[in-house]
């Protein structure tokens, strides 16, 4: 059976659910790069291949439960994210240093403690730090976020799902997503700021 190139995700999913394995291969080919990138961001590069396999296998096994109530992509992200979070829970985790120390500081009146130049330096991190070093530090910083913040930040800001879609993927309210993403942004902004000041 030939699968048309322009088939929608949802059409491919319906065919795959009826046993069309070529349609499922097309889904895997279409999404593998995004799923790998998502897995790297959620669990790190070393564990990402396992999560990619577990995620796609879970997608395959659950195709008949896809009810077309959300976009197929959102449903797939939910399954892969769950696979990643289960992977994180299962593995023995080394204690990681919190990023709490990088939250913004305010004086007694609620004013910023830093100067405008100090506050803006994080915005130039990609100009001031070697690209490879920044990639290593960024991956490590993601790993230092609490799982709840990392999953919301990765889905909303790095994978660029809408807040409503992230809420759907994580099974929480939109307000909870905003709060978690905000907290992650504050920590990561402060981390980039500290990193950049050291290098500049």
């Amino acid at each position, binding site marked *: 059976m030939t699968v048309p190139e322009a088939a929608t995700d949802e059409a491919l999913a319906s065919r795959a659910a009826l046993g069309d394995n070529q349609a499922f291969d097309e889904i895997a080919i279409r999404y593998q790069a995004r799923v790998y990138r998502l897995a790297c961001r959620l669990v790190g590069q070393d564990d990402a291949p396992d999560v990619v396999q577990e995620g796609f296998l879970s997608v*395959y096994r659950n195709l008949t439960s896809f009810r077309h109530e959300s976009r197929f992509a959102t449903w797939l992200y939910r399954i892969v994210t769950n696979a990643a979070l289960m992977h994180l829970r299962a593995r023995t985790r080394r204690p990681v240093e919190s990023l709490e120390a990088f939250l913004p500081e305010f004086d007694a009146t*609620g*004013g910023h403690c830093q100067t405008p130049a100090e*506050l803006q330096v994080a915005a130039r*991190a990609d100009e001031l730090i070697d690209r490879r070093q*920044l990639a290593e530090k960024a*991956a490590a910083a993601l790993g230092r976020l609490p799982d709840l913040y990392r999953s919301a930040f990765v889905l909303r800001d790095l994978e660029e799902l809408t807040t409503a879609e992230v809420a759907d993927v994580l099974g929480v309210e939109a307000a909870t997503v905003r709060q978690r993403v905000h907290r992650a942004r504050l920590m990561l902004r402060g981390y980039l700021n500290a990193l950049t000041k050291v290098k500049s």
Partner: protein
Amino acid sequence: MTDISCQTGVEALMDYLEGVVPEEMRKTLESHVAGCQKCAAFVASYLATPRILRQATAAAMPPELQRSLLEFLRTQRGEGPPQKD
């Protein structure tokens, strides 16, 4: 219009950007940032953070992993190797 502290502005920033703060708060925030160089600088770095992290963590999937994924899925489905055309 009453002003707010930088800290209050930072706490409301995400909701402001998502368009879910009340109208009065939106105006107060915009007025505060317009007159506060520190907050303007903070907002710039806050907005840049996702972009920088997005670019720095955009890992490409190795080709051998792409091949092994399809083989893995076919094996799990009980299929043999793909037939050559």
